[in-house]
């Protein structure tokens, strides 16, 4: 039955990648969030540069710093994964290498995200 559908009808809505504008939209949503969250992180890091261990540990453990940092980690890794996905799709044309690179991209983003989030949560809840 699907063969009766015209190429235009198949492409309409979700397009050939079957994800529609999902990539574009998530990329922009995280970009807007990152403008605020990265600005916050820059101020936090400049403030903490050269500070001693108890100060850094205590500051990162405070919820008003830990929560924006956790949001930055989440928004940041989603944004960078989408960006790297586009770069891989632009330059890696061999199907095998492309799939491998896209997998590695997802693994790297997940690892960085979880490692950073784990560290912030440990500082927040740990001794």
């Amino acid at each position, binding site marked *: 039955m699907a063969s009766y559908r015209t190429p235009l009808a198949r492409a309409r809505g979700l397009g050939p990648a079957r994800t529609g504008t999902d990539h574009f939209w998530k990329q922009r949503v995280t970009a*807007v969030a990152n*403008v605020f969250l*990265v600005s916050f992180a*820059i101020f936090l890091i400049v*403030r903490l540069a050269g500070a001693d261990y108890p100060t850094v*540990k205590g500051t990162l453990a405070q919820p008003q710093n830990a929560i924006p940092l956790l949001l930055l980690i989440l928004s*940041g890794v989603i944004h960078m994964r989408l960006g790297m996905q586009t770069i891989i799709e632009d330059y890696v044309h061999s*199907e095998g290498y492309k799939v491998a690179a896209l997998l590695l991209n997802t693994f790297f983003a997940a690892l960085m995200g979880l490692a950073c989030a784990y560290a912030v949560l440990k500082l927040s809840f740990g001794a």
Partner: protein
Amino acid sequence: MAETGESASRPISPHLSVYRPLINMVMSILHRITGVALYFGTLLLAAWLVGTAAGEPQFHLINAFFAHPFGRLVLFGYSWAVLHHMLGGLRHFVWDTGRGFSIGQVNALCWFTIIGSVVLTLVLWMVGLALRGEL
């Protein structure tokens, strides 16, 4: 590259190397390069956070790297990449609304990105070093 059958013999359009560099093209390339740099730069953020969470010896180890001239240089580049990518993103928000596409506006937005990112980076480091009493 998929050099299979028909696709290999097709004519291809001229790529980047045939064009004289224009500011919007250079900013587009820099946006991608800084994006890649920030991608791997998350390793630095992770090292700092995980090091701090791991304990005082690890914290001092990470800090020693960041305090070393080479570490400082890496951080300086990282901070410029963040600011440049952010200003480039703001430029794309303007373009997303369908505005700013005349040649004059495109060039102005692109010059604003590079000049703004360099100025902001220098201001950031002057403030940071002044706060530490190193300036």
